[in-house]
């Protein structure tokens, strides 16, 4: 009988070996490996390993038309940059454009036809088969065509001048009472005003920024998204060398106002007075163009009008010192200089008389048609000559039975209330927007168009540019299943509509037609993003070659501005009633009574209440105090305390139109008694799909008789409870 093994022995063995293992490299190796493993471990999405390639396109988020160079992996773009030395974009993109490639994946993207339960904020939006939706719209159309209501069918195009716009107009011309409505972009506002003042209506102009030295802007957000950002930034950053000077007449301490060399902080709604006051000084000191009598038709009347606007009076009314008024007049008189009327992306345009008064200064200074001033621009080849389109404020109330809202963003807000006024109570609203916005949520039917960079689109002349340009926006994403090309929408609609017998062209044909016309004109040259080369159009034998270049991402630019024909203008197109309207202003505007304050909505182009910005862009608004989130109310500290409010407080604003929550931000630079409220963008993921937050402050802004909503009054007080 050999040695018997007891349990104790086994335990000893186990213990011993355990001890031994500790001193062997094994456990340490295991630890080190697990360390490395835990370091690489994460629940994050896997990254693509496909090779990286470059793709060229054009940004369609705003009418600017900046060139895009996209870095793609496996055909999916992951980063955008401005195309180097691009003639329009100047090699840069704005904050919005840089994240443009993510718009197609926006959480509020709509990818199927929908019908809304009602027109209130947060109405339930439920999917509906596309054909059914269009059939329903067609049915209404057919019903209408019987009795001819004034404007039974209207379409709002916020990006006029596209080939698509022409197709829209054709379609509408075939349906009874069809009406084509445009909302011009801010840059065009001044030019369209001048157009109305010009004797020859065909006249189109552009701002010759590059050359100008002094820019007097009445509230135009020049440095915050105006014209094509690349160009403006280029001019701005070179100012030290060129001596470019920005004078900003603005009531709000906007970024532009803060940065401008001169900031004339005028009282809200006194732009007209200031403009006429400047006119007064210019005439008094004989600073106007000497050939003024020849270039204008009603100089005498104008002179008589502005005579009443002497600096002391003006200064008293708009709160700008008499000296700085005179100083400004003299500065802009030192040409080359330009005067532009502003439109706040959310606050909307200035009233008519203000626009004319401001535009008149350009005529007065003789910048019209001269180098570095406002120069005539050749029309884009192939652009059909049509009578000027209607603007929304010209439409009689409750006259629209079917309102179709095109999906393209101008970057500028239209309050839903303004549209609501125009639409008949029983009318139907159709939205073609690919994103869920307050305006979309308000529609009865949604036929979502493909998103940004999903569709072959065109970008023509940037607003206010002196030479026209043309480029194609090549798709970087495949079209998402369920979205509908507006052309297909029209086709389907005309199919179910009696009488609408137009043939809708295919997208390709539509764009080629433009390209062919440009090629036929033989003007200009094409910029190629791949190598930055320029190709004369004349050098391209066939239209096919030209099309090829464009679809490779080429950008066509016209040869310089048109040779200026001397055009005569009327300084008071409105005649006597306009003069009287202006004179009425001298009696001073009534200050808001009692506890209420003057409210001015403001926004950033493309990031307004009715828009959706890329989730990454909204980081800026949300995670830095660089820009203001929707519902931020800027107050003068004094005003705040007088209403028992402090910085960071949550307050409620109320007036006849409604009530809303705001977050108070005190800023010493704000005028007392004025509240500037940011309209959009909302916090990220804050509005769940299917129910989008309201259009914020705009819901409090009742559009006036002149179609403006930039000024309104409301009461403000500390918020208590959970009132929305």
């Amino acid at each position: 009988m050999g040695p018997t093994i007891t349990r104790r022995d086994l335990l000893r063995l186990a213990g011993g070996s355990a001890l031994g293992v500790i001193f062997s490299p094994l456990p340490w190796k295991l630890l080190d490996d697990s360390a490395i493993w835990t370091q690489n471990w994460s629940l994050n999405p896997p990254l693509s390993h496909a090779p990286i390639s470059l793709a060229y396109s054009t940004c369609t988020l705003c009418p600017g038309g900046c060139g895009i160079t996209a870095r793609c992996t496996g055909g999916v773009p992951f980063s955008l940059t401005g195309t180097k030395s691009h003639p329009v974009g100047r090699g840069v993109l704005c904050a919005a454009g840089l994240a443009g490639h993510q718009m197609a994946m926006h959480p509020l993207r709509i990818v199927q036809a929908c019908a809304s339960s009602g027109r209130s904020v947060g109405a339930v939006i439920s999917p509906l088969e596309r054909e059914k939706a269009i059939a329903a719209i067609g049915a209404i159309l057919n019903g209408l065509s019987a009795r001819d209501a004034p404007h039974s069918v209207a379409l709002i195009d916020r990006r006029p001048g596209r080939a698509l716009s022409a197709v829209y107009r054709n379609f509408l011309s075939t349906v009874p009472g069809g009406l084509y409505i445009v909302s011009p972009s801010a840059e065009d506002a001044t030019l369209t005003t001048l157009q109305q003042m010009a004797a020859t209506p065909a006249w189109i102009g552009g701002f010759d920024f590059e050359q100008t030295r002094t820019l007097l802007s009445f509230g135009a957000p020049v440095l915050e998204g105006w014209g094509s950002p690349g160009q403006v930034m280029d001019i701005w950053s070179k100012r030290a060398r060129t001596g470019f000077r920005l004078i900003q007449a603005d009531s709000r301490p906007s970024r532009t106002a803060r940065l401008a060399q001169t900031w004339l902080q005028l009282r809200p709604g006194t732009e007209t007075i200031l403009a006429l006051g400047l006119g007064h000084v210019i005439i008094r000191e004989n600073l106007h163009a000497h050939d003024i009598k020849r270039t204008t038709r009603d100089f005498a009347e104008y002179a008589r009008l502005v005579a009443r606007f002497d600096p002391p009076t003006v200064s008293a009314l708009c709160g700008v010192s008499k000296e700085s008024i005179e100083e400004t007049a003299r500065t802009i008189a030192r040409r080359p200089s330009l005067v532009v009327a502003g439109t706040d992306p959310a606050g909307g345009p200035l009233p008519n008389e203000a626009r004319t008064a401001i535009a008149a200064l350009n005529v007065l200074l003789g910048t019209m048609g001269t180098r570095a001033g406002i120069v005539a621009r050749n029309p884009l080849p192939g652009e059909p000559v049509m009578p000027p389109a209607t603007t929304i404020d010209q439409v009689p109330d409750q006259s629209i039975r079917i309102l179709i809202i095109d999906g393209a963003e101008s970057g500028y807000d239209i309050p839903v209330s303004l549209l609501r006024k125009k639409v008949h109570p029983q009318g139907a609203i159709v939205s073609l927007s690919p994103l869920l916005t307050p305006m979309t949520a308000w529609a009865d039917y949604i036929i979502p168009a493909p998103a940004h960079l999903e569709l072959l689109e065109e970008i023509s002349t940037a607003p206010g540019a002196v030479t026209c340009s043309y480029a194609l926006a090549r798709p970087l994403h495949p079209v998402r299943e369920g979205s509908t090309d507006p052309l297909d929408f029209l086709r389907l609609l005309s199919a179910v509509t009696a009488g609408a017998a137009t043939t809708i062209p295919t997208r390709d044909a539509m764009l080629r037609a433009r390209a062919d016309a440009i090629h036929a004109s033989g003007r200009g040259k094409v910029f190629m993003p791949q190598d930055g080369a320029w190709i004369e159009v004349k050098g391209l034998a066939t239209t096919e070659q030209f099309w090829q270049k464009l679809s490779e991402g080429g950008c066509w630019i016209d040869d310089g501005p048109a040779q200026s024909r001397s055009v005569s203008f009327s300084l008071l197109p409105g005649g006597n009633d306009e003069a009287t309207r202006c004179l009425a202003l001298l009696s001073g505007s009534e200050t808001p009574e009692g506890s209420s304050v003057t409210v001015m909505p403001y926004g950033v182009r493309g990031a307004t209440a009715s828009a959706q910005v890329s989730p990454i862009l909204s980081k800026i608004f949300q995670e830095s105090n660089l820009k203001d989130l929707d519902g931020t109310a800027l107050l003068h500290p004094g005003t705040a305390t007088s209403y028992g409010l402090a910085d960071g407080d949550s307050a409620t604003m109320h007036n006849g139109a409604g009530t809303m929550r705001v977050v108070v931000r005190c800023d010493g630079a704000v005028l007392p008694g004025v509240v500037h409220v940011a309209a959009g963008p909302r916090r990220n993921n804050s509005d769940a799909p299917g129910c989008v937050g309201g259009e914020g402050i705009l819901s409090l802004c009742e559009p006036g008789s002149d179609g403006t909503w930039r000024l309104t009054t409301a009461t403000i007080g500390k918020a208590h409870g959970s009132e929305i």
Partner: protein
Amino acid sequence: MDPKSEKTARYGMVIDLDRCTGCGACMVACAVEHNVPPAESSATPRTGITWLRVYGMDNGPEDSGRDTAYIPMLCQQCGHDTPCIAVCPQNAVDVDPTTGIVGQVPQRCLGCRYCMTACPYHARSFNWWDPHWPAGMEKTLNPDVSPRMRGVVEKCNFCHARLHQAKAKAALEGKRDIKPADYVPACVESCPARAMVFGDLNDASSDVALAAAAAASFQFLPRLGTEPKVYYRSDRDWIRRKADHTVHSSLTEAEHR
């Protein structure tokens, strides 16, 4: 390997505050480049992940005339007594001697946030949330930059991935040194006002070296002795005065506040 095989660089940046308009393009470009997830709905300016953040600065009441400057604040890549390196308990922060770039190793980071308290420029962000992208957006992530997990600190590294790309390119072309044009951080590339200059400060002929040496250029909080490699320039005195934090200004600041 032979140490001379790679000449040591000192990458730096000069930001022209007279050009910056505070448009925020650099912030977006940075976020897109580095796969920073969209903001959580409850994120605030103090909980956001902003490697680069643009601040607004007004001249105090003591100055006549209202003036504002916008200041892009990113990791200043301190070149001496780098506050964040010494404090990290587990070597998750290190400086690359060949580039002078202060690197952060999120995979190593414990999330103690000691480095954030140490940083005088508030240039570091903590991942308070799990990173989360809307459906489909994860396909648009930059393949060169791995996303960070919750609970770790991150910061600007002068687009290190781009440096790697440039090196790879140079290696492919059989060159030793990279072409300056091949290595440009996202913010510099995107700035619409061209307010940022980037390059090797050791290369005396480079734009950045010249700009940094110029009279109008300055650093923020130079007296801390951290010798930032990110310089700023402006012709406006009040900005330079504020940047160079002195006993006097600190008092007036407090007065102001």
